[in-house]
């Protein structure tokens, strides 16, 4: 969590730097020269949104670990839940309809895992007991920085339609089941699932984002808007036993919030 927060601060700072860099100054200058013909849509656009991400792709993982002098195996089928998030983005217009921007989304969700474990017998080789259970509320944190090429289309003075797309840089933190706790009693022919032991793992990768936004401005600079975007990346997380588990990050996102333009 601290790593994610720290990364968020760094990325936010990076966005601000992009906005205030000499390059940004040049593109603002370019937008200024072309903005006189149509509605005053501003040169710099900011969006601050609440976000709702629909359920992502399920995935599965298998871990093995030593238990009772043999390898125990735990297979977990993870089901992602939808959840809320936060989205902020900014863009600078290079021309009347074209801009570049950057955005950041943070998604805090959870997943459940249907678990099937094969637990070695404490007295005999090759006589595993099967346990079944479920782990709920497994943490899923996604932080994504999006680089976007934007198409901006004003509709009258108050409505602004934007479409965008580009690469995304994802960092995903996921709680993965590393082992199971169980209860057993002599003669240990059966074991009953008690709970799952989880481990938070994290990794980063590159993906894509695409979407659209509809803004309505009450004034020259302030408005509200809603949008939909689709982000996706495949992340190879390190499984608790050292293997790799492929997780699909992102998904379909509905955003809504404040729109600013300057």
């Amino acid at each position, binding site marked *: 969590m601290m790593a994610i927060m720290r990364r968020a601060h760094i990325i936010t700072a990076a966005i601000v730097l992009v906005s205030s860099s000499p390059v940004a100054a040049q593109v603002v200058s370019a937008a200024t020269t072309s903005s006189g013909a149509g509605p005053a849509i501003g040169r710099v656009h900011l969006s601050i949104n609440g976000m709702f991400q629909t359920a992502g792709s399920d995935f599965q993982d298998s871990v093995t670990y030593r238990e*009772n*002098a043999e390898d125990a195996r735990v297979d977990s089928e993870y089901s992602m839940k939808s959840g809320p998030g936060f989205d902020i983005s900014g863009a600078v217009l290079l021309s009347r309809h074209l801009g570049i921007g950057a955005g950041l989304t943070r998604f805090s969700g959870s997943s459940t895992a249907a678990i099937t474990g094969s637990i070695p*017998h*404490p*007295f*005999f*080789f090759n006589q595993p007991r099967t346990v079944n259970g479920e782990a709920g509320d497994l943490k899923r944190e996604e932080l994504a920085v999006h680089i976007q090429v934007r198409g901006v289309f004003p509709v009258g003075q108050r409505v602004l339609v934007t479409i965008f797309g580009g690469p995304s840089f994802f960092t995903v933190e996921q709680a993965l089941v590393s082992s199971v706790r169980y209860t057993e009693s*002599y*003669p*240990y022919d059966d074991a009953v699932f008690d*709970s799952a032991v989880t481990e938070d793992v994290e990794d980063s990768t590159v993906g894509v984002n695409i979407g659209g936004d509809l803004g309505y401005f009450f004034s020259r600079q302030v408005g509200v808007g809603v949008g939909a975007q689709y982000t996706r990346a495949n992340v190879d997380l390190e499984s608790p036993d050292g293997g790799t588990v492929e997780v699909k990050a992102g998904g379909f996102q509905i955003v809504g919030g404040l729109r600013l333009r300057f």
Partner: protein
Amino acid sequence: MKVIVTSAAVTAALLLSLEHGLAQRSSSPRTATPRTATPRDTSAPAGRAQRPRTPSARVAALRITATNSADLRTWDSYVTQRLGTGELRARSVDRDPAMPQRTVERLQAYHHGVPVWGSEVVRDSQAGVPVAIFGEMAADFAIETQPRLTLGEAERRLLALGGADATLLKAVELTIVRHETREPFLAYTGVVSGHGEVNRVFLDANDGSELMRYTEIQTQAATGSGRGVLGDTKKLSVLQQAGAFLADDRRRPPVLTTYDFRADLTRAIAVVDNGAPLFTSDLATDADNNWTDPAVVDAHAHIGWTYDYYFRRFGRHGLDDRDRPIVVLTNAVTQQGAPAVSGSVLSRWVINAFWCGACGPSPGGVLFFANGIPPTFFVVGSGRNYSYFAGALDIVAHELTHGVTDSSSRLIYQNESGALNEAFSDIMATSVEFFYQQPGTGPARADYLLGEDISRAVLPGSRDGDRSMENPALYGQPDHYTRLVTDPADNGGVHINSGIANHAFYLAIEGGSNRTSGLAVQGVGAANRAQIERVFYRAFVFLMPAASTFSTARAATIQAARDLYGVDSAPERAVTQAWTAVGVQ
């Protein structure tokens, strides 16, 4: 190949149960004595709080037990007030999955901002209403909480105590420690790993001296593995303690321990014959839980398996059906040391396995498995080499079954009852083999031979194993009552005449004809062997008197078959035919 013993010793060596005592000592479990209640702490609320009796304590503990409404009101107020002042601070808030409506707060006691070691209150609430409050707090005391020693210096001193490779496993923290015999003290505490130990150490926070320590390694059951006499790998249920693994099975219901005499025959004799106590240091041990001593591996594993067989097949809890401790002894004499010992030592401690109910330290009863002789030697007379006796599952089960008989029918160990005693051990031994091993011939295969896994033919004409239930005559045993041996040797032929009952058991399962009478038996078949096992178990454990004869055994087993499977059932017919075939009426 070398000859090692005389023919007289051979006879003794072939007797797997030389020390078969009949007496037993009853165990006397200890009962916990509750601590005496002492007057209430007058400075505390008037709920149920007690100071335990600690005559030399400088600062008494305030023990809180509030479960009724009056005490709960009092102590809830006490807790709430101290939460407000910071004297209690939440350490954790949990929900027990078994009672999800409850909230359990664990509150750490503080004194002027410094935690008091081990002083805490637990408040169990439902919807904000306390249901129970338990606590162990220090009564009021005064102490300076500003240490003269810095945290960094405390860390350095703690590391120095752990040696060159020491590490601190947890953050060092300042705390106040209540002590039963002295004033509370301000201390730095940390967990130091070094010298092969992991200890929590407390340093005086003012002068840096060590005040106390205790190990952070707690014992726990563990599963190890090891290679047995036959080269097979098996699991061992052991105890992990202080960085080592001990042959102390904490997973099975009884105390089941395997001791290693480490070739100290004098110590073995002192323990077995004179009841010298066994200590933890006598337990077989291994550093990495990958056990390499085949004698220990097989003795510990096979005894556990045999206990399991009795439980799974008959629901029996060990030797006395009350989980009496099972004490296993190994390694009195090494194989290499065997050629140098006397004949009497050889027959008892080298080529032998025994159960002795009257031997060993209280509560009595030990199993011993010898290591046998070097592979290049053989025993005169039998022409066989004997390896580690614990390596044969049937031998281990045979000896443990003597303990079962000792706790049940107590069949007198001479003449016919003695032969039945031996036969029952053979019957259960073979049953255990078939329970765990695949039928067949060769090492670790279930068959009707006894001891064949460690008793190997060397000279031409000799045979693997010591007895055959399928054909007792191959090993000089009678297969028919008309051939009963009445010689007074061997307690009236207890190891010889057992062949008659052994063969009856075999015929009741497998069927076939007796070679002497020619009478045929319709056995229940190998798939139904459990029926005959249960019949013989019920008869020998519950129905037969101590002085039973073969005729008594016939009647008891037939009755047991009727009890378990009904009159004229297949098991009853098989058992009846089998006894008739071996000439027992």
